[in-house]
């Protein structure tokens, strides 16, 4: 049997490049150590990471997958299914603006336009100066005193365009 001129070499195993800083890595591992063994722990783990870092970095996916004995696709699939999880670093302040019917009935659509124009961004975007990230919400449970928004997880009701400008002025 003649030897082939093409020899199959074992694939070179490169160390996985990770963009996570040591602090981010420590946060991810800390959350995993604390939560990963609870039944059905993936959502709590992802919440833990996002609460600590503000988002779920894409390089956290293989770490979570390995620690929880899941495939990367499973972890990625869960992150992409749920609107709450973010894979990009958000701005300094995150605004969740309600788009749902009860807020629409009291000027929610006009407020939405005002917010987008004032900040100069659409939903899921961050202002160029990195101050604000705008996300849509479908109901914040404040339906008797809308339009409503969450700013850094604090609920605000009866938000007129003027009140919105005051709120952003206050946290700027």
């Amino acid at each position, binding site marked *: 049997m003649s030897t082939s001129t093409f020899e199959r070499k074992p694939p070179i195993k490169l160390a996985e490049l990770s963009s996570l800083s040591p602090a981010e890595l420590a946060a991810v591992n800390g959350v995993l150590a604390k939560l990963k063994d609870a039944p059905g722990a993936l959502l709590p783990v992802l919440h833990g990471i996002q609460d600590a870092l503000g988002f779920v970095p894409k390089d956290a996916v293989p770490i979570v997958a390995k620690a929880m004995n899941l495939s990367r696709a499973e972890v990625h699939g869960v992150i992409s299914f749920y609107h709450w999880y973010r894979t990009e670093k958000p701005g300094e302040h995150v605004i969740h603006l309600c788009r749902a019917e009860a807020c629409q009935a009291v000027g929610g659509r006009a407020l939405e336009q005002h917010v987008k124009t004032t900040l100069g961004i659409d939903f899921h975007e961050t202002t160029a100066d990195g101050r604000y990230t705008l996300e849509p919400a*479908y109901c914040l449970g404040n339906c008797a005193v809308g339009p409503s928004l969450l700013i850094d997880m604090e609920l605000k009701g009866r938000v007129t365009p003027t009140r919105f400008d005051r709120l952003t002025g206050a946290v700027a």
Partner: protein
Amino acid sequence: MKPIPAPITIYVPRDSAAISLGADDVAIAIAAEAARLGVAIHLVRNSSRGLFWLEPLVEVATEAGRIGYGPVQPEDVASLFAAGLGNAHALNIGIVDELPYLKTQERLTFARAGITDPVSLDDYLAHGGYRGLKNALAMAPEAIVAAVTESGLRGRGGAAFPAGIKWKTVLGAEGAQKYIVCNADEGDSGTYADRMVCEGDPFLLIEGMTIAGLAVGATRGYIYLRCEYPYGQRALEEAIASAYASGWLGANIQGSAKRFDLEVRMGAGAYICGEETSLLESLEGKRGMVRFKPPLPAIKGLFGCPTVINNVITLASVPVILDKGAEYYKHFGVGRSRGTLPVQLAGNVKFGGLVEKAFGVTLRDLLYTYGGGTLSGKPIRAVQVGGPLGSYIPESQFDLPLDYEAYARLNNMVGHGGITVFDSSVDMAEQARFSMEFCATESCGKCTPCRIGSTRGMEVIDKLVAGDQPVKQEALLRDLCDTMLAGSLCALGGMAPFPVLSALNHFPEDFRPQPEMLEKAS
């Protein structure tokens, strides 16, 4: 010489709706003003009465009862003290319990709303809390299930399935481990009763779930709470820790050797996870994809085990049934709709708030006697009952009594009891389009009618309104709605056509193209 007066008790709600209007700042201002004047006060952060147009509603305990002031802003605080707490003031609304809005309600589930400090176990016990569980601890599981069945309680999340029958199935199911899951993924716009229980009376939900655990032999419970409710999460976790510390949760509930463990799990912004099988997938750490039924969750639910899954209000209605008896609960209501429903008035309404009434109350009564018409002062044009999947109801149907069957006969839905009011400025074609857009955004994607139909629905409505072959488009839209109604796997795709069709049927004029649109089209 006068005796030194005891500290005055002042209440400022910690409900997030009150906070959204400035309650935290008011509480700070009250503490500061009292300190400045050297007045001894006892500041209680209570739950909300549910009279949201009055929030922040400050109450002062007097011998005659609790006097209310509302809505109070921080700059009003100095004048409240200057007038003398409990005395006449422009914001004084009198004795809160005597307000007709409250006095004419039948508050069974919300008996403690606005009265107690939500995270105080002592307050809960002093106001009738845990009496239902004490009774349940002395009963056989079958007897607890029988009481819930006998009460006529139906699922308050929207599907209105008899709670007792669900529990009986789980009780009879084989399984080493069973679960109680509370659906607190209250995603329907116009509803906030679940939020008010989680934030305002968390022990009530804990008690209801513990009773459910005893009834079916489940030792573990989860509250699946939407992440848009951070205030509810904090209140529930604080209450659960306190219930564990006092032996109301854990391995040996009040020395009975019965076990029940409970934890809060947060959702992640997916409306579909309010659908029970999708919620269970999510609790298992997966994408919230709807499951095929059967098997029912009662047989194979969370982690494949028999599971009771009920909405917050269903579980929160159980303690009063076990405390006062099935007969007491059942005597409220009409037809097959027994007990009370906490109705939530929302949107463009003057007096928006929580109205817990026995079934049978008419929409007109709710909208005008309680709601006082619109906030804008314009006439009411349409109300959406039952959340984003509920139909838009016109004035001609306002005499409809609140009753699951009466609503269903007209293709309407009681749902979770949210009523969103729209005034005459509403564009119903825009609302119909939003229903389709919402369905497209929130569809889990498992079935075609919902995943594709919702996007096609938006396109067809756009063409219809633009005057592009309107007769054909309307026929197409109706056909599409029919496919979604009959062919979707769950209620999202299966009910999103209700608001669309009701808007089209009751307000056809809004779907006719505007003259300038016609010009553009030609």
